[in-house]
């Protein structure tokens, strides 16, 4: 693969399928794009040639199968999770990671001295970590009408990673998990037994059921009762449950310390 004179910027629609299509195209045409960016992130760039990639699900699927077959399922997982990080330059790291991957096969994940291999792995790890953490920290509230609602503001685009877990666990309930940062939500219907991602504006807030506040109060009472008062350890508490997630919790961490007599 040679670097051509006129350097290209690939622009995709921001979806995962879109990214796979763009990657497919680069490999197919043996091009090394100078950048791969989502439409929404793209700022006009006079120096480079712009290539708009039209998302094609068939190509995306084909390429995804190729990665699985010629590199590994693990690699495919890594790039999907790294994609969810929405981090800057993530697309190029993925591109170079795959470039090496197609040469050396599944061993690519051992090439830890390569910056881009580490970057992809680290991003993927961060995304998985947040998703795991939020499986515990998400708080559902009962809305009037019996559906359940949770608001979250995750660092990464983790809704799709969490959805299968909540589907298994709350399969007999109707629920919505709302990513307020990205203005989207996973919505699950018990009747259909299926979930899907929809757009949902930031301001959306359902009316709560009559008994919801009572249950929340019981949870708060439980939470402060189980803290051992004279063994306060805010460091560990924050290490596992960072402050940025406290806003949407029902309990109030640290509240037992306020009454501590020194």
């Amino acid at each position, binding site marked *: 693969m040679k670097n051509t004179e006129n350097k290209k910027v690939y622009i995709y629609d921001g979806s995962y399928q879109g990214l796979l299509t763009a990657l497919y195209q680069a490999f197919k045409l043996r091009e090394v794009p100078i950048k791969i960016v989502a439409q929404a992130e793209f700022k006009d760039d006079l120096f480079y040639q712009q290539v708009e990639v039209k998302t094609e699900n068939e190509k995306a699927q084909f390429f995804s199968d190729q990665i699985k077959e010629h590199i590994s399922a693990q690699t495919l997982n890594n790039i999907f999770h790294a994609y969810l990080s929405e981090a800057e330059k993530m697309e190029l790291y993925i591109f170079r990671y795959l470039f090496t991957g197609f040469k050396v096969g599944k061993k690519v994940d051992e090439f830890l001295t390569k910056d881009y291999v580490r970057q992809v792995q680290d991003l993927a790890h961060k995304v998985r970590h947040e998703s795991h953490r939020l499986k*515990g920290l998400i708080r559902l509230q009962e809305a009037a009408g019996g559906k359940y609602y949770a608001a979250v503001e995750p660092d990464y685009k983790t809704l799709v990673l969490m959805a299968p877990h909540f589907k*298994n666990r709350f399969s007999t309930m109707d629920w919505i998990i709302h990513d307020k940062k990205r203005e989207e939500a996973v919505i699950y219907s018990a009747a259909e037994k299926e979930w899907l991602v929809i757009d949902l504006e930031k301001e959306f807030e359902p009316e709560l059921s009559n008994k919801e506040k009572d249950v929340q109060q019981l949870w708060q009472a439980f939470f402060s009762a189980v803290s051992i008062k004279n063994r306060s350890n805010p460091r560990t508490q924050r290490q596992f449950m960072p402050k940025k997630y406290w806003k949407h919790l029902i309990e109030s*961490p640290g509240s037992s310390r306020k009454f501590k007599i020194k």
Partner: protein
Amino acid sequence: MELQKKLEILSDAAKYDVSCSSSGSSGRGDGSSLGNTKAAGICHSWTDDGRCVSLLKILFTNYCIYDCHYCVNRASNDRARASFTPEEVAKLTVDFYKRNYIEGLFLSSAVSRDPDWTMERLLKTVQLLRNKYNYQGYIHLKAIPGADFKLIYQAGLLADRMSVNIELPSESSLEKLAPQKKKAGILAPMKGIGAGIENNIIERKKYKVKDKFVPAGQSTQLIVGASPESDRQIISLSEGLYDHFNLKRVYYSAYLPVNNSSLLPTLPGPPLKREHRLYQADWLLRFYGFKADELLTPGRENFDLKIDPKADWALNNLDKFPLEVNTADYEMLLRVPGIGPRSAAKIVKARKEKTLTHYNLKKMRIVLKRANFFITCDGKYAAAVPFESSVIYDRLAENECQQLSLFGSSSGSDESSKSWDLEKAE
């Protein structure tokens, strides 16, 4: 009494019980009912003292007819008392579970009225949960010593895990500090549950019986430091429990002085360090092929608090070291301080291709900090100190001291960080 008040009293009374683990999946959850059990336990919150909140851990009641000396709920203690109804507990569990506050319920109880009466209430609660509310989340239930085993067995068909707390490591201490709990009343249900689990596994295989009996296993708890038993007695007891009663876990709980009783020792604080050593030794029994009488022998009754039990064993068996990593068998590699099952397996695999040097081990990401004192690679010994018991002892103790100071300065150790270093203790 208001429900919230009850919840405050009965969760406060339960919080010192350490066996909060919700590990072990029972594979419940079929899509037509509420909930499932996850193999890897999920923490839903962290308390202000830094412990993981995973289960709704409560007592059914703290009215107790018994008067165990070490217990806050003993009959002669003057304290706030409350009792739930089975419906209240079931409702609370489901309400919390549906909001993703918890992984499940951990229900224990004092002995109110008599053991059968109490056990019936606990059974009723799990029946409501499983049958009325169609709840398939995790349930850990205490079996009440002295209750009719039929009640315990029925409850076991609905719970994921059951436990009977032995509390005191010997009959004489039990006689002294918990005179009303007869040893038979504790060991009999444990034995019954253990046998029930074993039969159930066979029946499920052979006859395709669907009912699962205590699928996530049984556990127990021992209080450390309230009575005079040595570490040697305690780990021998644990070994017996694992071998004969099919126990999944034994939990150790450093005695926290809660009552003034002339029969109880006065301690400067709960013996957390000792508790930690017991957990490490327990780990060695379950996963490293050690026997209790190798770790401690008559005359050497307690673990060294400065170095871990594995290092302690190695230094007492220095004639078996240094070990040549290129020829030693897997079982012996596992006994080298600092080498765990993963490292041992890596070594066995890698040495088929070539003779391993220290450099190779490092490249394989095997941490040699502690192992170095006990191994040779292709005949070479690479620790920078002479191969002498006292010298190595000092180094290891120093090492451990540094490691401990890395953990939070605010409080000694807490359950969550403790169980973390356990996973890593090699």
